[in-house]
């Protein structure tokens, strides 16, 4: 199914680390997932939702646990439904109670992760699921890549349609409301999309670091950009480059791929932080 891709990679990247099929699959997955994270991350950071998206990751974990409990072969669909439900609930609660949202998010987040761990460890079979914590990008299969392609197309389309509304809500809710935007609906759509993306990628990236991948590229871009276009370009580029370099390094170092990618992204963040003053003048 992906023969064309393997040929392209052999021609363009004739390196040792790219000689294995699983590395080629992982590279394609990275090229599909990291731009999404870079793109969604821009508004996660602008909305000050770093902690919130972390909670969404925990909700996704519970969803996967519930999916496993229901006993189907692919727990991914049950997980997606649950994590969207979870995202909608905490978005509504966050909007209804203006005070100390971080506590509320914290409560939901910890409840979700505890519930997930209890369900998955039931009967002492947790080891089977520990990959959800760290993630295993190299195990991705061609059919799963196809699913990522679908997600990539869907999110990109949605981002083109609804980006302006999301931007306005992130800048000032009242201003957005005065322009006739249903701010709660926009937030729910946005958080649901993040929940879906986090849920379907969590098994490859890992719960512990998935939020970093969402936050770091955008946070790096925010340091050095002046407008929305630059913000997107730098964030997406930082995400893709971190992904590729991280994949290569994890091959040679024999380390967890997701974590290595995050380390590279963090490196980019600190570079842009140092350059910050040059760009804000």
């Amino acid at each position: 199914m992906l023969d064309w891709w393997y040929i392209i990679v052999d021609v363009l990247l004739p390196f040792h680390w790219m000689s294995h099929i699983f590395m080629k699959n992982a590279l394609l997955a990275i090229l599909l997932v990291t731009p999404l994270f870079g793109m969604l991350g821009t508004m996660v950071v602008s909305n000050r939702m770093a902690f919130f998206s972390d909670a969404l990751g925990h909700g996704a974990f519970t969803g996967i646990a519930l999916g496993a409990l229901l006993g189907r072969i692919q727990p991914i669909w049950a997980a997606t439904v649950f994590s969207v439900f979870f995202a909608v609930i905490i978005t509504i609660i966050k909007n209804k109670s203006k005070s100390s949202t971080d506590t509320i998010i914290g409560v939901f987040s910890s409840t979700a992760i505890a519930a997930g761990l209890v369900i998955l460890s039931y009967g002492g079979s947790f080891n089977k699921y520990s990959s959800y914590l760290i993630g295993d990008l190299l195990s991705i299969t061609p059919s799963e890549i196809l699913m990522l392609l679908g997600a990539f197309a869907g999110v990109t389309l949605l981002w083109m349609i609804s980006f302006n509304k999301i931007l306005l809500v992130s800048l000032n809710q009242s201003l957005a409301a005065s322009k006739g935007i249903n701010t709660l609906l926009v937030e729910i759509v946005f958080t649901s999309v993040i929940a879906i993306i986090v849920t379907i990628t969590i098994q490859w990236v890992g719960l512990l670091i998935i939020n970093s991948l969402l936050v770091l590229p955008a946070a790096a871009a925010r340091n050095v950009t002046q407008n929305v276009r630059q913000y997107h370009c730098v964030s997406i580029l930082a995400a893709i480059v971190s992904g590729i370099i991280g994949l290569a390094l994890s091959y040679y170092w024999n380390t967890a791929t997701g974590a290595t990618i995050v380390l590279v992204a963090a490196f980019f963040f600190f570079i842009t932080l140092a350059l910050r003053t040059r760009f804000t003048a």
Partner: protein
Amino acid sequence: MINEIRHNCKSDDDCGGLCCTKIENFGVNIGNIKILENVNVHIHCGELTAIIGPNGAGKTTLLKAILGELNHTGELKYVDAKGIHNGDPLIGYVPQHLDFDLGSPTSVFDIFMACRTNIPSWIFKPRSIRTRVEVSLAKVKAEHLINRKLGTLSGGELQRVLLALALDPIPDLLLLDEPVAGIDHNGLELFYSTVSELRKNYDLSIILVSHDLDLVARYADRVVLINKTVVCSGSAQEVFSDERTAKIFGMSWYKLGREIKLPSDNYEGDVKC
């Protein structure tokens, strides 16, 4: 386009006192607490109505209720001179500049794109829209700011950009949430003189939620003092010379109101204060 035509009044008759926005019986409850009740305000076109009140009086709540952000009882009605357009007013809103996320990499042009179109500005930046935005910004003497990042604007500059945004399209009702701090004196002068000019040119109804009684005394046509409900309303002199104002804001404003003897002091008609 329709809005712009409607506001280009050919004669005084078209823009007479008949056109107004009515806030009728507004009430807002948050949980079991009554924040506002029984608020009635009529705002005539071409007038600047200032809402004043102590902290916690419900000024911001009233603003959010008018915007539809908070559920409220009562009605908001717009009636124009010839009955061409009745019902929900088109609202323009100028938020406090401090409520903005100033670290966001968003340029002035980006925020206009976000308000006026569905074209994502991270992909396309059409020339035609840029020209339109420049025209809007020129109205508030801010066309040179189009490429600047929001966070690099001074308080006064951002306030003018937000005003241009609220005036596009020309609204029936303009809501101004006055900045508490962070704008220098010259910036405020420029802002309010621009607002005054626009009010005349476009026959705008303006509600100013104010924290600065000095500015209210100078620019407001009418003043409404609220504290959970409308305490009193009238001209600046009338409201400032009322005892209830003295109780809430202190004696200096009371004296100011008393000292300025105006014909309205002898007015025996419908003076509520």
